């Protein structure tokens, strides 16, 4: 069983970097720390630009910083990939289709 991750670990990395919410907000281009507080309380999901800015600030990959969100996205994508693989395999066999299927199966967890 996979360990359930928190939506994000911003608070952990911010505290480790000894930054205040206001300081991090400034680095992210926000006017106040309120937005950072909302991210840390999991009340708001940051935009892609913010996520990438966090990666640049803390030097931690976004998939680790936003581990819970990544886990959720990965799960739903895997589910859709499985569905697509099933749909494709039901169609007539073509060389291109076989390549697509093998690609999809490589992506799917065994």
């Amino acid at each position, binding site marked *: 069983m996979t360990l359930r991750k*928190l939506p994000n*670990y911003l608070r952990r990395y911010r*505290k480790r970097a000894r930054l205040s919410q206001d300081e991090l907000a400034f680095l992210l281009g926000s006017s106040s720390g309120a937005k950072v507080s909302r991210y840390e*309380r999991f009340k708001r999901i940051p935009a892609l630009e913010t996520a990438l800015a966090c990666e640049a600030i803390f030097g931690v990959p976004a998939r680790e910083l936003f581990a819970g969100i990544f886990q959720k996205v990965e799960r739903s994508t895997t589910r859709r990939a499985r569905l697509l693989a099933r749909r494709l395999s039901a169609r007539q066999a073509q060389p291109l289709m076989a390549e697509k299927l093998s690609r999809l199966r490589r992506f799917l967890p065994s």
Partner: protein
Amino acid sequence: MLAIDPTSRGFGFAILEGPEILIDWGVKQTRVRKNPRCLKQVQELIERYEPEMIVVEDCAAKGSRRCLRVRNLIQSIRVLAANRRIRTRCFSRLRVRQVFSEQDARTKHEIATAIARQLPELRPHLPSFRKPWMSEDERMAIFDAMAFALTYYRLADLRQTTPSAQGLPLTIHAT
């Protein structure tokens, strides 16, 4: 895991995802209606982090010098955890000292220093050595909470690696 150590003005807490992964830590303070407010803040932490386990001090253990209010607060935290189907573990101060004596840490300050060595993010919060005429630094509650959490991990680790440790007389009360 959520580790809590009540103080005279509130409580110190630590959220961990393993013995070396510290997620959040801090001190919550209140001056009036201490227990209801502390309980509300504990509830907020539980809602935010959804811990699988809460670790607190065993006030019923021999030698515990906790006042009635703190005993009641710890009991309320345990009830709150039970209502949310969260496991609770209690460790006596003596048990914590026994565990940390492996690292040659016997006093409260030595234990806090050992924790700060293990988790560098806590190093800036380590209070200076307390002289007899000084009152305790509020941040010591973070290290006390951490000590309970690390005691749990150490004992769990011992139970897994040493089969003979399973028979150890542990002062753990589970709910």
